[in-house]
């Protein structure tokens, strides 16, 4: 038996264009003292990244495609990473051979590093109602005259759309024209890709530009709403303030929901005019009858997929507001001082209300993948025994 353990030390979340590193350890678990212990042999092992696409049958009509099924028998020495997976493989990286002819003595263990740049042009990991994009690192290994065994390590990919192209040397402020300088440049470049992406993220999401909205309905002004920015990173709080004291219409209650809209591109929609799937990711609900000003803070969960668009699906983000407003813009009662009689004022038992809704589109961008790793449902580590 050989135990294969693949482990992404950095965590299971990566930004597209970033270098993924995975350590794959092959261990012969037999103790060298054990009598039955013998050396184990593996013919080869190879690894590659692929992205599986799966669409819901009753929402997405995909064009028929050539039925390229897995024709290989198990005994073949061919690694098809997506074999046995649902959906179709929309993207894969070239396979990289980890080794050929590995021999492990009892108790021996060997580790092979695998590194690959996560393709920058792929879709992000996404688990929607109609469409799924799932990334996996698949490690295939084979003993001589045995079927190929696949070890899959699922991971999550965040895509920062509009990220600058992976830097070519020309982009660097100093071009390394001497070939002896290239080595370190190349290793720095990978780190820099992430840095640049994060810088860009910080710049776009940390700029505040308040937007003010007068919330009005047909009866009059309800409130003034201020949101300080409309572009957010995962994990950030969306903060907005309401000022009801300037409104003419009493507002009993409001709610703000963070929602994502998943829209199938027109040509792939199963039914024409098919509704957009909306998913809620958090909600703030507040009674605000005698409130002059208030605010909400909605956290954007770290596990959601930032907005993106592929040729099949578009994911957008919005804030969905609902307001319960009184129908009569009652003039607030005035208490006159120095009345000769005692006055007891009590609130109304019933209020005739209307409800109104409003949507505000926002942008949700990825965050530092290391941060997203903490809450990932994947562990970044997986193992099999062969």
């Amino acid at each position: 038996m050989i135990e294969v353990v693949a482990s992404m030390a950095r965590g299971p979340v990566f930004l597209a264009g970033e270098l993924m590193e995975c350590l794959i350890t092959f261990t012969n678990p037999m103790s060298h003292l054990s009598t039955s212990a013998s050396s184990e042999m593996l013919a080869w092992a190879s690894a590659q990244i692929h992205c599986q696409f799966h669409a819901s049958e009753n929402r997405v009509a995909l064009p028929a495609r050539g039925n390229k099924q897995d024709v290989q028998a198990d005994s073949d020495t061919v690694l098809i990473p997506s074999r046995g997976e649902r959906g179709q493989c929309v993207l894969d990286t070239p396979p990289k051979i980890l080794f050929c002819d590995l021999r492990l003595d009892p108790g021996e263990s060997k580790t092979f590093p695998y590194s690959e740049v996560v393709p920058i042009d792929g879709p992000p990991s996404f688990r929607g109602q109609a469409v799924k994009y799932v990334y996996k690192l698949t490690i295939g290994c084979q003993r001589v005259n045995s079927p190929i065994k696949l070890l899959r390590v699922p991971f999550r990919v965040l895509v920062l759309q509009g990220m600058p192209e992976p830097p070519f040397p020309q982009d660097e402020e100093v071009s390394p024209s001497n070939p002896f300088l290239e080595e370190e440049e190349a290793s720095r470049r990978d780190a820099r890709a992430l840095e640049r992406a994060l810088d860009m993220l910080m710049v776009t999401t940390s700029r505040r530009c308040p937007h003010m909205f007068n919330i009005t309905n047909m009866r009059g002004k309800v409130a003034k709403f201020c949101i300080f920015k409309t572009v957010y990173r995962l994990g950030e709080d969306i903060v907005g303030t309401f000022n009801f004291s300037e409104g003419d219409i009493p507002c009993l209650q409001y709610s703000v929901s963070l929602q994502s809209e998943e829209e199938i591109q027109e040509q792939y929609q199963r039914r024409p005019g098919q509704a957009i799937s909306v998913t809620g990711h958090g909600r703030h609900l507040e009674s605000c009858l005698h409130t002059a000003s208030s605010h909400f803070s909605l956290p954007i969960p770290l596990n959601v997929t930032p907005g993106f668009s592929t040729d099949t699906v578009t994911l957008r983000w919005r804030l969905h507001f609902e307001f319960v407003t009184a129908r009569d813009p009652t003039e607030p009662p005035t208490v006159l001082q120095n009345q000769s009689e005692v006055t007891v004022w009590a609130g109304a038992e019933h209020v005739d209300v209307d409800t109104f809704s409003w949507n505000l589109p926002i942008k949700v961008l990825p965050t530092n993948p290391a941060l997203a790793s903490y809450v990932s449902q994947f562990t970044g580590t997986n193992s099999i025994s062969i």
Partner: protein
Amino acid sequence: MYFLTGWPRRLLCPLRSAEEPFHIQPSSQRFYFALLSETQLSIWFSRPSVLIVSYIESVKAAAQFGFYQKAEWKPDDSMVAVATAKGYILLFDVLGGRDEKYLYEPVYPKGSPRVKVTPGYKEEQCAPALSLEMKKPVDLEAPITSLQSLQEDLLVCTADGYLHVLHWDGLGSNGRKAICLTTIPFSLDLQSARGGPSLDLEGVHIRCMEYCVTLDGFAVVLSDGRLGFITPLSNTITADQLQGVWAADVCDGTCVAVNNKYRLMAFGCASGSVLVYMIDTTTGSMQLSHRLELTPKHYPDIYNKTGPVKLICWSPDYSVVMVTWECGGLSLWSVFGAHLICTLGEDFAYQSDGTKKDPLKISSMSWGAEGYHLWVLPYRQERRRQEEQDVEMVSPPHPSLQAGILQFHFIKSALTVNPCTSNQEQVLLHGEDRLYLTCGDPTQIHSASDAHPHTHLHPRDSSPLHQPPNPDSPLSQGLSTLLGHKHWQVVQIHSTYLESNWPIRFAAIDSAGQCIAVAGRRGFAHYSLFTRKWKLFGNITQEQNMTVTGGLAWWSDFVVVACYNFTDQQEQLRLYQRSSNLDNAFASVTKLHSDTLLLNVFRNMIILFRADCSICLYSIERRNDGPCPSASVELLQEVSMSRYIPHPALVVSVTLTSVRTETGITLKAPQQVAHHVESDACRQQELPFCPPVVLAQCVENVWTTCRSNKKKRHLLEALWLSCGEAGMKVWLPLFPRDHRKPHSFLSRRIMLPFHINIYPLAVLFEDALVLGATNETVLYDGQGSSEPLEALFPYCTVERTSQIYLHHILRQLLVRNLGEQALMLAQSCASLPYFPHVLELMVHVVLEEEATSREPIPDPLLPTVAKFITEFPLFLQTIVHCARKTEYALWNYLFAAVGNPKDLFEECLMAQDLDTAASYLIILQNMEVPAVSRQHATLLFNTALEQGKWDLCRHMIRFLKAIGSGEMESPPTTPSTQEPSSTGGFEFFRNRSISLSQSADSIATGKFNLQKTFSMPTGASAKGRDVECAENMYIDMMLWRHARHLLEQVRLRDLGCFSAQLGFELIGWLCRERNRVARVDDFVSALKKLHKDFLWPFPVIPVGSLNSPLKNGGCRTVLSSQLLKSQSADSLLNSDMDTAPTSTAPTNHTWMDGLGQRSKDMDTASSVHSSQHSPQTQDAFLSLLTNKVEEYSIGSATDLTETSSVVDGDWTMVDENSTLSLSQAELEHISMELANKGPHKSQVQLRYLLHVFMEAGCLEWCVVIGLILRDANVIKQMISFLDNPEVPPETVQSVRNGLLAVDAWASADCLGYKPFLNLIQPQLQQLMESTSEQVQPEAFQPASQASKLSASEGLGGAAVPRVEDTRGVAAPLGLALPSLEPAGAFPRPPSEDSPPEQTEEQAEEEGTYDCTLS
């Protein structure tokens, strides 16, 4: 602990009135708030925060009673008492609280298909309808100073020095008592002077008073500012049964608030400080526990200008206290005085432009339910100003003033109310509607890896493969995970549960940090982070029929709940399984006999503390017999604690611990931790009970763990305490070294106090870390927001923090002469990523303290610390890092203790730790004469050169130059240019004041002027001045020496790197050395060395071996062909370069077809053959495989022999190259041929070197490189150069001999070279003829000719066209890959037209958008 979040919310009274509320009084459960203005009593509801009812006095009554002043609720919320200015007590009946009548119930238009925003809105979101009715007023005939509600009575203090006891129900004559203050005897403690009043109380009255249940007495502030405590000696309050004690030496008291849980009395003083007193239980005297004061350090401009303390408010759970002063501001302290928030400083006090804000002045405040809100009534003038701001900014919609109430929001640690064990290892905060969890903590990894052995691999366990060379990778990342990031995972509490059960009372997280349970007014709910789903009771009746009383805890995947069952009217202990539905059918229920106050879980035991002051232990056992797992609970033991605990409400937490290796119970009572030790003689049976031991006072939290780890026993078996302002304490076990004399040591422990800068919320035992949280603020003013609240207050957030404490403990141990223990402890933690930092901190702190001390220290600790650190390999590094971070003035003291820096420098060199040595150099430079530092620098420079540490070399060059110029011009010039490439760890070179006047030069040659290396040196050094010349000369000498050394050893690759990295003028130097060291003595060994250094495969001769590829099937062939692919893919890129000199047009398709057919078999065979040569280099090739497109193109070439590996079954791969219609044999042939070339990068580097040598005229080297590249043109060119009369004859001779030697070697050892040698044979012939006639031309015939005649026949034919063949095929392929860079061109000009920074100015107007609701 409590943290402020967001902005305050502003409530507005819907009644327009000229009066402002100035007093707020919560009802006992804090669901109602009574607000008073001059003639108006209003009742507000807590959630939703709406006005329920308002009573407005008639003008006549107002004239009679005077304005309202104070209010107090009857404990059952049925009455409100209001004190008026003219000495009346007005009693109001609050009616209707129990009716099912609600206010503000929304009525939706009939028939409209509207969606209700909240399904349960009607019931939960409405305030109950109440009404107010005034009963008969009571005239007390003197101004009322204080009101206090007792269970049955109302206690009123009047300004005439009387204390009135009024009965809530029978107000009037019969239930009324009056006690004159002067009759109460006062003393300093209860034992002394029992007779008669000892103090002059004439004309004095009680200004402020509050009753403390657990102390059974009144804390009073007298009108003359003295503080006292009055206790009734019997059960009823009567005049002759009262006894008072004084607080000594205080006479400026203003107000008081008592803490029932911790038995503390907080007195506000006119000086602005709050004195917190406790009662000494033996003497009954008042003892000062601690003070709450703003420190001049943190609040330099306000600490003494706050004015008298105005109000003090303990939070409902008594764990924090809010204080406000006359000048305004809010300040929050923990119960034992750790300061948390103050709104008098920083962002609260200053706007973003630096202008000072007026502090918020407060006339009254009150905590809301469970402490999630603080209701604050701003002082009138303050509010006026705020309204004026409104007026300025927008036209006011309402002309009249309206009452405002500010609601501040807080989140608190789950420990404050539910201190169960798992909450202590995770930071869990809860706000009104959400939970904050830390994410990515190492504890999660520990515990999770225990549960699932294979899913987690600790980052620090990563194999050595992963650690160097990149220092930013996993190690430092782990560090930043622990220390750096400040993010929370925020979980919103399920709104359905929240709306019907607000407020949340208890929250608990499991030890893995994956599951959370919360309990509100009724029932409970739990959440899993993994599924991200809440689980609520399916049956709402079950939820509403229970209320959690004693807290929640997790035991593996069970929620343990101590609750009250309303249907059976009994107290129960229930366990619910996490994965099954939340239903009583799946719960295990145990009846309890008394109310539960506290609950905790330890291993497989539940510990309960009950209202009858007893502790119950239950064992839990998991049962898997049923369809779903259940748990059974069995009572183990009951222990009565009533002898030790005066009141059950005083117990803050109960924990079972394994501290002291025996099982014990830790019981946290107010002000002390009592530790009950019970031996583990019969753990499952009766635990013998031992009387409690007081371990520490003023304890806010206790941490222990039930895990054990032999390697970290010190940390895991310790008991950690947080003690408010006193910092933290650890009760550390001491272990005998080497297990000698275990008995004498076994029970030894030591209590060590230490200070940390954060409020501790969780102790990570194994990681030697404390986690906490702090309030941070963000200013939103000046954002164009017209809302004054956002301008007035910063937006508050809570950030998690963490702190290392190990250095404190180590130091304390060293101080106490427990060096062995310190060493054991430190060694157990040496693998922690921040351990070096710990050591550094320890040296630093001790150094700062001792070196700056005014008096001489009799027994300095620094030598001990230094000696301690020498035990660790990090010693050298620690010392130098510490030195760099301290002032120069302290260095002498430091190095006197740790040793001479010269010696340390040399130790670093010996240990090959060059970076650390470099750090020492800066010390030497400051402490020694320049000659010494130069000498050491030279030493280091040479070592760095040898090891190829280029960054260090560059710095050393600069350093050496700086020393030189520093000698001449002092003071040294400050650096003006920033170094273009900053490299980690060397910042100090920049920051120190070394002259960097030449840094730009030296760097520039390294980075910018690389192209110059092709031309002759332009004399960059010539422009320097004399001094620089000398220095440069010195450095150049060293560089030259190193270059010579490299060239002598045929380390061309190193030479290339050396020259590139340091900007060494290779060509100029080579020109000079052309006839000296730049000669080649042994062509064959040089060639071999190049092959090795550049990973260049030896050429393979396609020997007509007989094994057919088809026979050889199986994985091996395919794999090797894949290997070939990767090699050849790289070479393909360069094919146009290879062909560049001859530039053959790619037109040979027909020819190639013919060739392909002819040599098919042979070529496939040779590919197999070549694969057998390649294994030793396969790793390098693999790492170069980067380009997808190349991969495909070659993929088709190898597919055909074997079933394909890559393309098949993959619909995304469209093989573009299939159009080339190359036959299988051709392509295999090509790939075999290309396999004979090395990696692309090596090729580029070799070409580069070739150019350099050509420029410098080093013909011998050119020939060697030409040979390895097998570029006939180069050889031809070189040989033609040899005709030049300037070429010295030795060179010609050397080339000739060299080529002969190579030929001989090739014939003997490396037949692969023969075809190439044949190719250049004419030139060789020419060379031989032109120089001497000694050489036999036959020598250049293939040596194998005789032996393998038939084979070499084919060879000779194939070898020549093969070169052509490569071109022919490669060219079209090259065309198909247009994006790939032309590999031959090194001097690529840096693109100057880098795309201009896209300054997208999104001119976001801050105007107002109108949006209409749909």
